[in-house]
């Protein structure tokens, strides 16, 4: 290979490796994590997916639960075309673990201005953690197309 080629090839490889290292640093040191495999709700024979989700903890109790000082568990169910619960109130500094799933089709659960962004798939359990350090009203948006009224599927989180 020509010298110019070699320089270019190694430069390209180094840039890409630097990017990967930066991502690994962000995941390990800054704890920016994506959702992972957190289990699936499988209906019993003859049972519908809806009733299977409704009886499986924590989804039998959608809403906010305080699990420790400043620590909250927020359980959200996506369904056409709303979030259950549609509005959530949290104290400032709340360390929240979101648990989400869907009753019917693929939905999205996205809070602009934060790194809360996860898919709600039928029967799949999504888990993501976020600490709310800024007061204000946050909007929850369904960002996965879910049918005719997809654009009306929204909710709020109020942090005081």
């Amino acid at each position, binding site marked *: *290979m*020509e010298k*110019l*080629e070699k320089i*270019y090839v190694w430069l*390209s*490889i180094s840039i*890409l490796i630097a*990017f*990967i290292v930066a*991502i690994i640093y*962000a*995941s390990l040191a800054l704890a*920016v*994590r*994506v*959702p*992972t*495999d*957190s289990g*699936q709700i*499988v*209906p019993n024979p003859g049972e*519908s*997916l809806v009733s*299977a989700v409704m009886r499986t903890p924590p989804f039998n109790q959608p809403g906010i639960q305080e699990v420790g000082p400043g620590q909250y568990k927020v359980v959200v169910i996506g369904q056409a*075309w709303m979030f259950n619960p549609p509005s959530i109130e949290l104290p400032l500094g709340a360390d929240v673990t979101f648990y989400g*799933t869907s009753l*019917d*089709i*693929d939905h*999205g659960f*996205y809070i*602009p*201005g934060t*790194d*809360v*962004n*996860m*898919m709600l*798939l*039928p*029967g*799949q359990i*999504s*888990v993501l953690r976020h600490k709310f350090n800024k007061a204000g009203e946050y*909007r929850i*948006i*369904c*960002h*996965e*197309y*879910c*049918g*005719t*009224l*997809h*654009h*009306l599927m*929204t909710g709020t989180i109020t942090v005081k």
Partner: protein
Amino acid sequence: MSTIFQVQTQVVENPKEFKLSPDNHRWILLSILFGFAALAFGVFQGFVQGLNYAGISLFSFLPGMKTYYEGLTAHGVLNAFIFTFAEANGWLALTTARGLGRNLNSKILALSFILLVLGTLFAGIPIFVGKASVLYTFYPPLRAHWAFYLGIALAVVSTWLISAAQLMALAAWRKEHKGERIPLMAYVSIMTYIMWDISSLGAAAEDLFLLLPWSLNLLPGSDPLLSRVLFWYTGHQIVYYWLLPAYVSWYIFIPRMVGGKLFSDSLARIAFILFVVLVPVGFHHQYTDPGVGNYYKIAVLILTFGIAFPSLLTAFSIMYALEIGGRANGGKGILGWFWKLPWANPTVSAQVLAMIAFLPGGITGIMNASYNMNLLTHNTTFVPGHFHLTLGSAVTLSYFGIAYWLIPYLTGKPLALKGVAKWQPWIYFLGVMIFARGEISGGILGMPRRTAMAIINYEPLPGWKLAGALTGIGGTIMFISCVLFFLVIFVTLVQKKQTVTYPDMPFTETYLGAAPSGWQLILDRLSYWVLLSFVLIALVYGPFLLTHIPPKLTAPPFQGF
């Protein structure tokens, strides 16, 4: 640099005379024209999508589009599937035939074209009567009419047939040319289709074994997660199937058209091999999905960054060819060569502008692929902002440029309205830059994609209005440019003049040609690279499939449109 210039000068292709048979010619021309017809339908829908982001809702007024989502499905299917399939089928059949100096099997080309037309009708009619508003991702349990799934399957089979015709021609060529290197133009065309053969298997399996029987009520339900995994196995690689035909033009034709030469034959082959080997990257579309473990997400993170590498190689090869061309035209200094490129030629300007648009396209792609940065951009308008710089410009704008010489080449009619053709790529480039600026900034500010923004029931977040307005303005400019393009092609086709005789396709020479011996021979052992690709796929997808098959068909169908 002067030392490099003297190394080797070798023609990429078999320099012998070659005449396309009338049958080959017919199906190739029809395929190219059919692709542009699909694009014409699709961009019309796209225009209305753009206005939607600017807050203007026109869906209910237009024929064949009752809802935003119906139009979006048509836009995605026609532009991202039918247009790209038809162009690649025609264009790479032609480059393979010319590269090998051998016509492809006409019956297979004919069958491929007919299947694509049938597939378009089967998929298109349910969309336009509102029975398949499932977007081009067709995620279950959102269920479309069975004809939609059948249509998609036929369209994919039509691409496989082109690959079969290419491989048959290659086998015949190899018998007559023992020990010779595969001509580069044929090599890159065939490798593009081999890559696509391997990577279309996922969506094909999803479509044929899960969705089609399910839509005919033969299965009790669907498996949303497995379907998404199979879809995105193909769904990322499909972008390379869109892109590589443009790369073929950039590697093989652009160097010659700008008066330069391609630098290295081997480097070009290595780039295409990497696209074949690094197939399993689709999981990166599922970083925010539940049910997919971190092993897969991290593995594809690394492979996805790996697949950025052949595009960086391409940037090197092409930039170098452009520089040689520009300097040969008298360009001086570090960047002086850039202004000396033949900008008056719309074939060149369209493709060079496509390359420029591809720079931010590639960078935003790397951002999307970044494991945790994806949390910011996933399913926001950042993503369509990105892929309108890749599919919407690097690919489409390149096809505009290619069409400006290919249509005259295939029809023997001179390009009409040359003045319009000269400005059309610039208008498109301006439009897509404004459009992408809008979508990308909107995405960073949380604007969701695939959403009827004009009729949301809450106050848009700060910054969305500006982002939406830019999207609408840019989209309108893109649409105007597309109309001009179709006008040029239409007038070219209907004119009576029949004077142009292209002596041959304008393919390039290389400085470092194909070595007849040594390590480089392994680059032509296509089966080795296919095998390597399958090993990598087994490592990434194997564990997932082993634990998720048989599918859990627990999600009942839903028809919420």
